Protein backbone atom coordinates (compact mmCIF):
# COMPACT_ATOMS: atom_id res chain seq x y z
CA UNK A 1 0.00 0.00 0.00
CA UNK A 2 1.27 3.40 -0.88
CA UNK A 3 2.62 5.53 1.90
CA UNK A 4 3.02 8.70 -0.13
CA UNK A 5 0.55 11.44 -0.83
CA UNK A 6 1.49 11.90 -4.46
CA UNK A 7 -0.26 8.72 -5.54
CA UNK A 8 -3.54 9.67 -3.88
CA UNK A 9 -6.21 10.34 -6.49
CA UNK A 10 -8.13 13.56 -6.11
CA UNK A 11 -11.51 13.10 -4.52
CA UNK A 12 -14.35 14.65 -6.47
CA UNK A 13 -16.88 17.09 -4.98
CA UNK A 14 -19.65 14.57 -5.60
CA UNK A 15 -17.99 12.10 -3.30
CA UNK A 16 -17.29 14.78 -0.73
CA UNK A 17 -20.89 15.92 -0.59
CA UNK A 18 -22.14 12.42 0.22
CA UNK A 19 -23.87 12.85 3.52
CA UNK A 20 -24.37 10.40 6.33
CA UNK A 21 -26.98 10.96 8.99
CA UNK A 22 -27.47 9.25 12.29
CA UNK A 23 -30.63 7.18 12.43
CA UNK A 24 -32.14 9.00 15.36
CA UNK A 25 -35.51 7.40 14.82
CA UNK A 26 -33.89 3.99 15.21
CA UNK A 27 -32.11 5.20 18.32
CA UNK A 28 -35.43 6.24 19.92
CA UNK A 29 -35.96 2.71 21.22
CA UNK A 30 -32.65 2.87 23.07
CA UNK A 31 -33.51 6.27 24.51
CA UNK A 32 -36.89 5.12 25.76
CA UNK A 33 -35.25 2.00 27.19
CA UNK A 34 -32.69 4.18 28.98
CA UNK A 35 -35.51 6.27 30.39
CA UNK A 36 -37.43 3.28 31.67
CA UNK A 37 -34.40 1.57 33.22
CA UNK A 38 -32.56 4.54 34.67
CA UNK A 39 -35.26 7.09 35.37
CA UNK A 40 -38.71 5.59 34.97
CA UNK A 41 -38.07 2.75 37.41
CA UNK A 42 -36.99 5.10 40.24
CA UNK A 43 -39.99 7.32 39.46
CA UNK A 44 -42.34 4.34 39.76
CA UNK A 45 -40.66 3.21 42.98
CA UNK A 46 -40.81 6.64 44.59
CA UNK A 47 -44.36 7.16 43.31
CA UNK A 48 -45.46 3.78 44.66
CA UNK A 49 -43.82 4.48 48.00
CA UNK A 50 -45.41 7.91 48.29
CA UNK A 51 -48.72 6.45 47.17
CA UNK A 52 -48.54 3.73 49.76
CA UNK A 53 -47.53 6.15 52.52
CA UNK A 54 -50.35 8.53 51.71
CA UNK A 55 -53.12 6.19 50.60
CA UNK A 56 -52.35 3.21 52.84
CA UNK A 57 -53.49 4.78 56.14
CA UNK A 58 -56.42 6.44 54.41
CA UNK A 59 -57.49 3.09 52.94
CA UNK A 60 -57.25 1.55 56.41
CA UNK A 61 -59.40 4.29 57.86
CA UNK A 62 -61.90 3.99 55.01
CA UNK A 63 -62.26 0.24 55.46
CA UNK A 64 -62.69 0.69 59.18
CA UNK A 65 -65.43 3.26 58.59
CA UNK A 66 -67.15 0.90 56.18
CA UNK A 67 -67.01 -1.97 58.67
CA UNK A 68 -68.48 0.18 61.42
CA UNK A 69 -71.46 1.17 59.33
CA UNK A 70 -74.46 -0.96 60.18
CA UNK A 71 -76.31 -2.71 57.35
CA UNK A 72 -79.22 -0.33 57.91
CA UNK A 73 -77.02 2.72 57.63
CA UNK A 74 -75.42 1.29 54.50
CA UNK A 75 -78.82 0.63 52.99
CA UNK A 76 -79.94 4.17 53.79
CA UNK A 77 -76.82 5.55 52.10
CA UNK A 78 -77.45 3.58 48.90
CA UNK A 79 -75.72 0.31 49.66
CA UNK A 80 -72.15 -0.86 50.23
CA UNK A 81 -70.90 -0.23 46.68
CA UNK A 82 -72.27 3.30 46.54
CA UNK A 83 -70.82 4.21 49.91
CA UNK A 84 -67.46 2.70 49.05
CA UNK A 85 -67.35 4.49 45.69
CA UNK A 86 -68.08 7.79 47.40
CA UNK A 87 -65.35 7.18 49.99
CA UNK A 88 -62.88 6.17 47.28
CA UNK A 89 -63.63 9.39 45.39
CA UNK A 90 -62.96 11.37 48.55
CA UNK A 91 -59.78 9.40 49.26
CA UNK A 92 -58.53 9.78 45.71
CA UNK A 93 -59.16 13.49 45.77
CA UNK A 94 -57.12 13.89 48.96
CA UNK A 95 -54.38 11.55 47.74
CA UNK A 96 -54.08 13.37 44.42
CA UNK A 97 -53.86 16.73 46.09
CA UNK A 98 -51.09 15.44 48.35
CA UNK A 99 -49.23 13.32 45.80
CA UNK A 100 -49.50 14.84 42.38
CA UNK A 101 -47.31 17.90 42.97
CA UNK A 102 -44.46 15.86 44.41
CA UNK A 103 -44.76 13.18 41.77
CA UNK A 104 -44.63 15.61 38.84
CA UNK A 105 -41.74 17.57 40.34
CA UNK A 106 -39.73 14.45 41.19
CA UNK A 107 -40.63 12.82 37.89
CA UNK A 108 -39.29 15.81 35.98
CA UNK A 109 -36.23 15.95 38.23
CA UNK A 110 -35.47 12.25 37.64
CA UNK A 111 -36.19 12.45 33.93
CA UNK A 112 -34.03 15.48 33.28
CA UNK A 113 -31.29 14.98 35.86
CA UNK A 114 -28.01 15.27 33.99
CA UNK A 115 -29.67 14.69 30.62
CA UNK A 116 -27.02 16.87 28.98
CA UNK A 117 -24.73 17.77 31.85
CA UNK A 118 -23.79 14.16 32.71
CA UNK A 119 -22.78 13.37 29.14
CA UNK A 120 -20.57 16.44 29.16
CA UNK A 121 -19.13 15.82 32.64
CA UNK A 122 -18.47 12.12 32.10
CA UNK A 123 -17.15 12.54 28.56
CA UNK A 124 -19.86 10.43 26.85
CA UNK A 125 -20.36 13.25 24.37
CA UNK A 126 -17.08 12.37 22.66
CA UNK A 127 -18.24 9.17 20.99
CA UNK A 128 -21.86 10.30 20.61
CA UNK A 129 -21.10 13.51 18.81
CA UNK A 130 -18.27 12.29 16.65
CA UNK A 131 -21.12 10.55 14.83
CA UNK A 132 -23.09 12.48 12.18
CA UNK A 133 -25.43 13.87 14.74
CA UNK A 134 -26.38 17.31 16.08
CA UNK A 135 -26.59 17.54 19.90
CA UNK A 136 -29.83 19.51 19.82
CA UNK A 137 -31.52 16.80 17.75
CA UNK A 138 -30.26 14.02 20.00
CA UNK A 139 -31.24 15.70 23.26
CA UNK A 140 -34.43 17.17 21.78
CA UNK A 141 -35.59 13.67 20.93
CA UNK A 142 -34.55 12.41 24.36
CA UNK A 143 -36.61 15.19 25.97
CA UNK A 144 -39.74 14.23 24.05
CA UNK A 145 -39.25 10.52 24.74
CA UNK A 146 -38.67 11.12 28.43
CA UNK A 147 -41.89 13.10 28.48
CA UNK A 148 -43.74 10.19 26.91
CA UNK A 149 -41.95 7.82 29.28
CA UNK A 150 -43.03 9.88 32.27
CA UNK A 151 -46.65 9.76 31.14
CA UNK A 152 -46.16 6.01 30.80
CA UNK A 153 -44.98 5.73 34.40
CA UNK A 154 -47.94 7.84 35.54
CA UNK A 155 -50.21 5.43 33.66
CA UNK A 156 -48.53 2.48 35.34
CA UNK A 157 -48.90 4.01 38.80
CA UNK A 158 -52.48 4.99 38.00
CA UNK A 159 -53.34 1.45 36.93
CA UNK A 160 -51.88 0.04 40.14
CA UNK A 161 -53.87 2.58 42.15
CA UNK A 162 -56.93 1.74 40.12
CA UNK A 163 -56.51 -1.96 40.85
CA UNK A 164 -56.01 -1.45 44.60
CA UNK A 165 -58.19 1.55 45.38
CA UNK A 166 -60.27 2.97 42.59
CA UNK A 167 -60.32 4.85 39.27
CA UNK A 168 -57.93 7.76 39.00
CA UNK A 169 -56.76 8.09 35.37
CA UNK A 170 -58.67 10.78 33.55
CA UNK A 171 -57.96 12.97 30.53
CA UNK A 172 -57.89 15.97 32.86
CA UNK A 173 -55.22 14.32 34.98
CA UNK A 174 -53.09 13.54 31.92
CA UNK A 175 -53.47 17.10 30.58
CA UNK A 176 -52.49 18.68 33.88
CA UNK A 177 -49.60 16.30 34.53
CA UNK A 178 -48.26 16.59 30.97
CA UNK A 179 -48.26 20.39 30.98
CA UNK A 180 -46.87 20.80 34.48
CA UNK A 181 -44.18 18.25 33.67
CA UNK A 182 -43.36 20.26 30.55
CA UNK A 183 -42.81 23.33 32.71
CA UNK A 184 -40.45 21.64 35.19
CA UNK A 185 -38.70 19.50 32.58
CA UNK A 186 -38.25 22.41 30.17
CA UNK A 187 -36.54 24.43 32.90
CA UNK A 188 -34.43 21.43 33.92
CA UNK A 189 -33.47 20.79 30.30
CA UNK A 190 -32.30 24.37 29.80
CA UNK A 191 -30.35 24.21 33.05
CA UNK A 192 -28.78 20.88 32.10
CA UNK A 193 -27.69 22.29 28.74
CA UNK A 194 -26.20 25.35 30.39
CA UNK A 195 -24.92 24.25 33.80
CA UNK A 196 -23.18 21.31 35.37
CA UNK A 197 -25.28 21.03 38.55
CA UNK A 198 -28.61 20.89 36.82
CA UNK A 199 -30.71 19.13 39.47
CA UNK A 200 -29.46 21.52 42.13
CA UNK A 201 -30.22 24.43 39.80
CA UNK A 202 -33.78 23.16 39.28
CA UNK A 203 -34.34 22.96 43.02
CA UNK A 204 -32.85 26.45 43.39
CA UNK A 205 -35.09 27.86 40.64
CA UNK A 206 -38.17 26.24 42.20
CA UNK A 207 -37.38 27.58 45.67
CA UNK A 208 -36.41 31.02 44.34
CA UNK A 209 -39.59 31.26 42.22
CA UNK A 210 -41.82 30.34 45.11
CA UNK A 211 -40.04 32.82 47.35
CA UNK A 212 -40.02 35.64 44.81
CA UNK A 213 -43.69 35.26 43.91
CA UNK A 214 -44.67 34.89 47.57
CA UNK A 215 -42.62 37.86 48.69
CA UNK A 216 -43.16 40.31 45.84
CA UNK A 217 -46.20 38.93 44.04
CA UNK A 218 -48.55 41.48 45.61
CA UNK A 219 -46.36 44.55 45.12
CA UNK A 220 -47.40 47.15 42.56
CA UNK A 221 -43.87 48.25 41.76
CA UNK A 222 -42.81 48.42 38.12
CA UNK A 223 -40.14 45.88 39.00
CA UNK A 224 -42.87 43.36 39.83
CA UNK A 225 -42.99 42.68 36.11
CA UNK A 226 -39.62 41.00 36.50
CA UNK A 227 -41.38 38.27 38.46
CA UNK A 228 -42.68 36.97 35.16
CA UNK A 229 -39.16 35.84 34.41
CA UNK A 230 -39.73 33.21 37.07
CA UNK A 231 -41.95 30.21 36.37
CA UNK A 232 -45.41 30.40 38.00
CA UNK A 233 -44.59 27.48 40.27
CA UNK A 234 -46.37 29.14 43.20
CA UNK A 235 -49.67 28.44 41.43
CA UNK A 236 -49.26 24.73 40.78
CA UNK A 237 -51.57 24.06 43.73
CA UNK A 238 -54.50 25.55 41.80
CA UNK A 239 -54.04 22.98 39.06
CA UNK A 240 -53.64 20.01 41.40
CA UNK A 241 -56.64 21.16 43.38
CA UNK A 242 -58.77 21.36 40.22
CA UNK A 243 -57.63 17.87 39.18
CA UNK A 244 -58.32 16.35 42.58
CA UNK A 245 -61.69 18.08 43.10
CA UNK A 246 -62.82 17.45 39.56
CA UNK A 247 -63.51 21.14 38.85
CA UNK A 248 -62.68 22.90 35.58
CA UNK A 249 -58.97 23.03 34.89
CA UNK A 250 -57.44 26.53 34.88
CA UNK A 251 -56.49 26.35 31.22
CA UNK A 252 -54.95 29.83 31.00
CA UNK A 253 -52.69 28.96 33.91
CA UNK A 254 -51.80 25.63 32.31
CA UNK A 255 -50.98 27.48 29.10
CA UNK A 256 -48.62 29.70 31.08
CA UNK A 257 -46.89 26.63 32.53
CA UNK A 258 -46.66 25.01 29.13
CA UNK A 259 -45.38 28.15 27.43
CA UNK A 260 -42.75 28.65 30.11
CA UNK A 261 -41.61 25.05 29.78
CA UNK A 262 -41.62 25.12 25.98
CA UNK A 263 -39.66 28.39 25.94
CA UNK A 264 -37.11 26.92 28.36
CA UNK A 265 -36.83 23.81 26.19
CA UNK A 266 -36.17 25.95 23.11
CA UNK A 267 -33.57 27.94 25.05
CA UNK A 268 -31.92 24.63 25.95
CA UNK A 269 -31.84 23.64 22.27
CA UNK A 270 -30.31 26.99 21.32
CA UNK A 271 -27.68 26.58 24.03
CA UNK A 272 -26.85 23.14 22.65
CA UNK A 273 -26.58 24.55 19.13
CA UNK A 274 -24.35 27.44 20.14
CA UNK A 275 -22.35 26.12 23.04
CA UNK A 276 -19.33 23.84 22.63
CA UNK A 277 -19.63 20.46 24.27
CA UNK A 278 -16.17 20.08 25.78
CA UNK A 279 -15.67 21.22 29.33
CA UNK A 280 -12.36 23.07 29.78
Amino acid at each position, binding site marked *: *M*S*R*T*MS*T*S*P*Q*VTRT*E*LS*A*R*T*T*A*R*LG*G*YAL*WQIRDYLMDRGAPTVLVGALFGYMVSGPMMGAMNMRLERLSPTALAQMGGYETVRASMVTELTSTALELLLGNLVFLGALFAMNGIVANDRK*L*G*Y*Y*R*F*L*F*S*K*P*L*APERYYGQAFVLHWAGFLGTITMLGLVYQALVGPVLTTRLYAAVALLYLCYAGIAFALSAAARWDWLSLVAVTVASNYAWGRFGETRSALAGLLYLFPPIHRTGEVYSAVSKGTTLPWSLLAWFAAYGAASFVIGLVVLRVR*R*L*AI*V
Partner: protein
Amino acid sequence: MIVFDQVGKRYRSWQGREVRALEDFSLEIAPGEVFGLAGPNGAGKSTLISLLLGFLGPSTGMLQIDGLAPRRYVERHGVSYLSELVNIPPTWRVTSALRRYAILAGLPSHEVHARVESMLETLGLEEHRSKRVRQLSKGNLQRLGLAQALLGEERVIVLDEPTHGLDPVWTQRFRDVLDQLRRPDRVILIASHNLDELARLADRVAIIDRGRLQRVVDVRANERTVTEGAPYRIVVASCDTRVGDVFPGAREVASGEFEVRALSLEDINAGLVRLMQSGALVRAVYPVHSPLEQQFREAVGVQVSAGREESR
Protein backbone atom coordinates in the same frame (compact mmCIF):
# COMPACT_ATOMS: atom_id res chain seq x y z
CA MET B 1 -8.74 18.15 3.43
CA ILE B 2 -7.93 19.43 6.93
CA VAL B 3 -6.68 22.98 7.23
CA PHE B 4 -5.53 24.73 10.38
CA ASP B 5 -4.88 28.38 9.64
CA GLN B 6 -3.24 30.29 12.49
CA VAL B 7 -5.50 28.57 14.97
CA GLY B 8 -5.26 29.64 18.58
CA LYS B 9 -7.13 28.51 21.67
CA ARG B 10 -7.10 30.37 24.95
CA TYR B 11 -8.85 29.40 28.16
CA ARG B 12 -9.44 31.42 31.24
CA SER B 13 -8.79 29.47 34.41
CA TRP B 14 -11.20 29.82 37.35
CA GLN B 15 -8.67 32.17 38.91
CA GLY B 16 -8.98 34.39 35.85
CA ARG B 17 -5.55 33.47 34.50
CA GLU B 18 -5.29 33.15 30.74
CA VAL B 19 -4.04 29.79 29.50
CA ARG B 20 -2.85 29.57 25.91
CA ALA B 21 -3.45 25.97 24.93
CA LEU B 22 -2.70 26.52 21.26
CA GLU B 23 -1.08 29.40 19.43
CA ASP B 24 -0.79 30.34 15.82
CA PHE B 25 -1.13 26.75 14.64
CA SER B 26 -1.06 26.30 10.87
CA LEU B 27 -1.06 22.97 9.09
CA GLU B 28 -2.60 21.22 6.12
CA ILE B 29 -3.29 17.51 5.97
CA ALA B 30 -4.09 16.01 2.59
CA PRO B 31 -6.37 13.08 1.76
CA GLY B 32 -4.54 9.76 1.81
CA GLU B 33 -2.20 10.77 4.61
CA VAL B 34 -1.63 9.06 7.89
CA PHE B 35 -0.62 11.97 10.03
CA GLY B 36 0.93 11.78 13.48
CA LEU B 37 0.70 14.25 16.33
CA ALA B 38 3.43 14.08 18.92
CA GLY B 39 4.20 16.24 21.90
CA PRO B 40 4.85 16.09 25.61
CA ASN B 41 1.96 16.09 28.11
CA GLY B 42 0.08 19.38 28.01
CA ALA B 43 1.52 20.28 24.61
CA GLY B 44 -1.93 20.94 23.14
CA LYS B 45 -2.66 17.65 21.33
CA SER B 46 -5.99 17.04 23.02
CA THR B 47 -7.05 20.65 22.49
CA LEU B 48 -6.19 20.29 18.83
CA ILE B 49 -8.34 17.16 18.55
CA SER B 50 -11.24 18.79 20.39
CA LEU B 51 -11.04 21.68 17.93
CA LEU B 52 -10.95 19.28 15.03
CA LEU B 53 -14.12 17.55 16.20
CA GLY B 54 -15.82 20.86 16.97
CA PHE B 55 -16.05 20.07 20.68
CA LEU B 56 -14.22 23.36 21.19
CA GLY B 57 -14.17 26.46 19.05
CA PRO B 58 -10.96 28.28 18.18
CA SER B 59 -10.25 31.62 19.88
CA THR B 60 -8.41 32.83 16.81
CA GLY B 61 -7.76 31.60 13.28
CA MET B 62 -9.72 29.23 11.10
CA LEU B 63 -10.07 25.47 10.98
CA GLN B 64 -11.82 23.54 8.21
CA ILE B 65 -12.43 19.99 7.13
CA ASP B 66 -13.35 19.72 3.47
CA GLY B 67 -14.14 23.42 3.45
CA LEU B 68 -16.59 23.13 6.34
CA ALA B 69 -16.35 24.26 9.93
CA PRO B 70 -15.48 21.17 12.01
CA ARG B 71 -18.78 20.83 13.86
CA ARG B 72 -20.66 21.20 10.62
CA TYR B 73 -18.47 18.59 8.94
CA VAL B 74 -18.90 16.14 11.81
CA GLU B 75 -22.67 16.58 11.83
CA ARG B 76 -22.85 15.99 8.09
CA HIS B 77 -20.36 13.16 7.66
CA GLY B 78 -19.19 11.93 11.05
CA VAL B 79 -15.62 11.27 12.14
CA SER B 80 -14.21 7.97 13.34
CA TYR B 81 -12.90 8.99 16.70
CA LEU B 82 -11.15 7.17 19.50
CA SER B 83 -10.53 9.41 22.48
CA GLU B 84 -7.64 8.98 24.86
CA LEU B 85 -10.08 8.15 27.65
CA VAL B 86 -12.69 5.68 26.48
CA ASN B 87 -15.88 7.08 27.98
CA ILE B 88 -18.80 4.71 27.48
CA PRO B 89 -21.59 4.38 30.06
CA PRO B 90 -20.45 1.55 32.37
CA THR B 91 -23.81 -0.21 32.43
CA TRP B 92 -23.98 -0.69 28.67
CA ARG B 93 -23.09 -4.13 27.35
CA VAL B 94 -20.42 -4.49 24.70
CA THR B 95 -22.75 -5.59 21.89
CA SER B 96 -25.48 -3.11 22.72
CA ALA B 97 -22.94 -0.28 22.94
CA LEU B 98 -21.74 -1.12 19.43
CA ARG B 99 -25.31 -1.40 18.14
CA ARG B 100 -26.13 2.01 19.54
CA TYR B 101 -23.06 3.62 18.03
CA ALA B 102 -23.73 1.87 14.71
CA ILE B 103 -27.23 3.37 14.58
CA LEU B 104 -25.85 6.79 15.40
CA ALA B 105 -23.14 6.34 12.80
CA GLY B 106 -25.96 6.08 10.28
CA LEU B 107 -25.59 2.41 9.35
CA PRO B 108 -28.77 1.05 7.74
CA SER B 109 -30.64 -1.26 10.09
CA HIS B 110 -30.00 -4.33 7.93
CA GLU B 111 -26.24 -3.76 8.16
CA VAL B 112 -25.97 -3.10 11.88
CA HIS B 113 -25.85 -6.72 13.04
CA ALA B 114 -23.25 -7.83 10.47
CA ARG B 115 -21.08 -4.78 11.08
CA VAL B 116 -21.16 -5.17 14.85
CA GLU B 117 -20.31 -8.86 14.56
CA SER B 118 -17.47 -8.06 12.21
CA MET B 119 -16.05 -5.48 14.63
CA LEU B 120 -16.36 -7.88 17.55
CA GLU B 121 -14.38 -10.42 15.57
CA THR B 122 -11.80 -8.00 14.19
CA LEU B 123 -11.05 -6.61 17.63
CA GLY B 124 -11.27 -9.90 19.52
CA LEU B 125 -14.25 -8.89 21.63
CA GLU B 126 -16.46 -11.90 20.90
CA GLU B 127 -15.94 -13.53 24.27
CA HIS B 128 -16.74 -10.25 26.01
CA ARG B 129 -19.85 -9.46 23.97
CA SER B 130 -22.32 -9.76 26.83
CA LYS B 131 -20.13 -8.09 29.44
CA ARG B 132 -20.95 -4.69 30.76
CA VAL B 133 -18.48 -1.94 29.93
CA ARG B 134 -17.48 -1.62 33.58
CA GLN B 135 -16.37 -5.27 33.58
CA LEU B 136 -13.86 -4.81 30.79
CA SER B 137 -10.12 -4.63 31.34
CA LYS B 138 -8.28 -1.54 30.17
CA GLY B 139 -7.10 -3.25 27.00
CA ASN B 140 -10.55 -4.59 26.15
CA LEU B 141 -12.10 -1.21 26.79
CA GLN B 142 -9.58 0.34 24.44
CA ARG B 143 -10.51 -2.24 21.80
CA LEU B 144 -14.19 -1.46 22.31
CA GLY B 145 -13.38 2.22 21.83
CA LEU B 146 -11.58 1.37 18.63
CA ALA B 147 -14.45 -0.84 17.47
CA GLN B 148 -17.04 1.93 17.90
CA ALA B 149 -14.75 4.31 16.00
CA LEU B 150 -14.47 1.98 13.05
CA LEU B 151 -18.15 1.10 12.66
CA GLY B 152 -18.75 3.67 9.95
CA GLU B 153 -16.88 4.36 6.75
CA GLU B 154 -15.85 7.87 7.62
CA ARG B 155 -13.22 9.73 5.65
CA VAL B 156 -11.62 11.29 8.69
CA ILE B 157 -10.26 9.04 11.40
CA VAL B 158 -8.89 10.56 14.60
CA LEU B 159 -7.19 8.24 17.05
CA ASP B 160 -5.90 9.62 20.33
CA GLU B 161 -3.37 7.26 21.91
CA PRO B 162 -4.84 4.26 20.09
CA THR B 163 -2.46 1.65 21.49
CA HIS B 164 -2.71 2.88 25.06
CA GLY B 165 -3.37 -0.16 27.26
CA LEU B 166 -3.02 -2.69 24.43
CA ASP B 167 -0.72 -5.66 24.86
CA PRO B 168 1.99 -6.30 22.21
CA VAL B 169 -0.21 -8.77 20.31
CA TRP B 170 -3.04 -6.28 20.00
CA THR B 171 -0.65 -3.43 19.29
CA GLN B 172 0.55 -5.41 16.28
CA ARG B 173 -3.03 -6.27 15.32
CA PHE B 174 -3.91 -2.58 15.53
CA ARG B 175 -1.16 -1.81 13.02
CA ASP B 176 -2.66 -4.36 10.65
CA VAL B 177 -6.12 -2.85 11.11
CA LEU B 178 -4.72 0.59 10.44
CA ASP B 179 -3.03 -0.57 7.28
CA GLN B 180 -6.40 -1.79 6.03
CA LEU B 181 -7.93 1.58 6.81
CA ARG B 182 -5.56 3.50 4.54
CA ARG B 183 -7.46 4.90 1.60
CA PRO B 184 -6.58 7.58 -0.90
CA ASP B 185 -9.55 9.72 0.08
CA ARG B 186 -9.15 9.28 3.81
CA VAL B 187 -7.16 11.14 6.45
CA ILE B 188 -5.99 9.26 9.50
CA LEU B 189 -4.74 11.38 12.38
CA ILE B 190 -2.98 9.64 15.24
CA ALA B 191 -1.93 11.40 18.43
CA SER B 192 0.52 9.41 20.47
CA HIS B 193 3.33 9.61 22.97
CA ASN B 194 4.78 6.53 21.37
CA LEU B 195 7.21 7.84 18.78
CA ASP B 196 8.17 4.39 17.53
CA GLU B 197 4.50 3.76 16.86
CA LEU B 198 4.18 7.02 14.94
CA ALA B 199 7.37 6.31 13.01
CA ARG B 200 5.91 2.98 11.90
CA LEU B 201 2.44 4.23 11.04
CA ALA B 202 2.56 7.85 9.98
CA ASP B 203 3.68 9.54 6.78
CA ARG B 204 4.26 12.84 8.52
CA VAL B 205 4.39 13.76 12.18
CA ALA B 206 3.71 17.19 13.66
CA ILE B 207 5.64 17.87 16.84
CA ILE B 208 3.81 20.22 19.17
CA ASP B 209 5.14 21.77 22.33
CA ARG B 210 3.61 24.39 24.58
CA GLY B 211 0.75 24.95 22.18
CA ARG B 212 2.95 25.66 19.18
CA LEU B 213 3.79 23.62 16.15
CA GLN B 214 7.52 23.06 16.45
CA ARG B 215 8.09 21.13 13.25
CA VAL B 216 6.55 18.68 10.82
CA VAL B 217 8.68 15.63 10.15
CA ASP B 218 8.39 13.67 6.93
CA VAL B 219 8.89 10.25 8.47
CA ARG B 220 10.07 8.42 5.37
CA ALA B 221 12.54 11.11 4.36
CA ASN B 222 13.67 11.43 7.95
CA GLU B 223 14.48 7.72 8.17
CA ARG B 224 17.19 8.19 5.55
CA THR B 225 18.89 11.07 7.29
CA VAL B 226 21.45 10.80 10.03
CA THR B 227 21.46 13.62 12.48
CA GLU B 228 24.91 14.96 13.19
CA GLY B 229 26.04 14.18 16.70
CA ALA B 230 23.22 11.73 17.39
CA PRO B 231 24.33 9.09 19.86
CA TYR B 232 24.78 5.45 18.80
CA ARG B 233 24.96 2.34 20.85
CA ILE B 234 27.60 -0.29 20.04
CA VAL B 235 27.37 -3.76 21.53
CA VAL B 236 30.52 -5.88 21.41
CA ALA B 237 30.90 -9.56 22.22
CA SER B 238 34.63 -9.37 22.98
CA CYS B 239 37.57 -6.94 23.37
CA ASP B 240 35.36 -4.30 24.92
CA THR B 241 38.38 -2.40 26.21
CA ARG B 242 39.20 -1.39 22.63
CA VAL B 243 35.97 0.60 22.24
CA GLY B 244 37.26 3.48 24.35
CA ASP B 245 40.46 3.68 22.29
CA VAL B 246 38.62 3.80 18.97
CA PHE B 247 35.78 6.04 20.11
CA PRO B 248 37.14 8.54 22.64
CA GLY B 249 34.43 9.53 25.10
CA ALA B 250 32.49 6.30 24.66
CA ARG B 251 30.47 5.60 27.79
CA GLU B 252 29.85 2.03 28.93
CA VAL B 253 26.13 1.83 29.75
CA ALA B 254 26.02 -1.93 30.35
CA SER B 255 28.42 -4.84 30.12
CA GLY B 256 29.82 -4.77 26.58
CA GLU B 257 27.42 -1.98 25.59
CA PHE B 258 28.74 1.50 24.80
CA GLU B 259 27.16 4.80 23.90
CA VAL B 260 29.17 6.89 21.48
CA ARG B 261 28.46 10.32 20.11
CA ALA B 262 29.33 10.23 16.43
CA LEU B 263 30.39 13.17 14.35
CA SER B 264 29.14 11.66 11.14
CA LEU B 265 28.14 8.37 9.56
CA GLU B 266 31.62 8.16 8.03
CA ASP B 267 33.27 8.50 11.46
CA ILE B 268 31.12 5.71 12.87
CA ASN B 269 31.96 3.39 9.99
CA ALA B 270 35.66 4.18 10.12
CA GLY B 271 35.67 3.56 13.86
CA LEU B 272 33.85 0.26 13.46
CA VAL B 273 36.41 -0.90 10.88
CA ARG B 274 39.24 -0.10 13.30
CA LEU B 275 37.41 -1.81 16.13
CA MET B 276 36.89 -5.01 14.16
CA GLN B 277 40.44 -4.95 12.85
CA SER B 278 41.60 -4.88 16.46
CA GLY B 279 39.81 -8.19 17.01
CA ALA B 280 36.53 -6.99 18.54
CA LEU B 281 33.37 -8.83 17.64
CA VAL B 282 30.58 -6.31 17.08
CA ARG B 283 27.20 -7.68 17.92
CA ALA B 284 25.01 -4.64 17.19
CA VAL B 285 25.11 -0.98 16.22
CA TYR B 286 22.00 1.18 16.44
CA PRO B 287 21.03 4.76 17.07
CA VAL B 288 20.06 5.42 20.68
CA HIS B 289 17.11 7.44 19.47
CA SER B 290 15.13 6.77 16.33
CA PRO B 291 15.35 9.56 13.76
CA LEU B 292 11.87 10.72 14.75
CA GLU B 293 12.77 10.65 18.42
CA GLN B 294 15.87 12.66 17.66
CA GLN B 295 13.74 15.25 15.88
CA PHE B 296 11.33 15.24 18.79
CA ARG B 297 14.11 15.80 21.30
CA GLU B 298 15.45 18.68 19.30
CA ALA B 299 12.01 20.20 18.81
CA VAL B 300 10.95 20.08 22.45
CA GLY B 301 14.42 20.73 23.82
CA VAL B 302 14.94 17.52 25.76
CA GLN B 303 18.25 17.72 27.55
CA VAL B 304 20.40 14.86 28.69
CA SER B 305 22.25 15.54 31.88
CA ALA B 306 24.10 13.11 34.10
CA GLY B 307 22.29 10.16 32.59
CA ARG B 308 18.93 11.64 33.40
CA GLU B 309 16.63 12.97 30.74
CA GLU B 310 14.79 16.14 31.46
CA SER B 311 12.22 17.82 29.39
CA ARG B 312 12.48 21.58 29.50
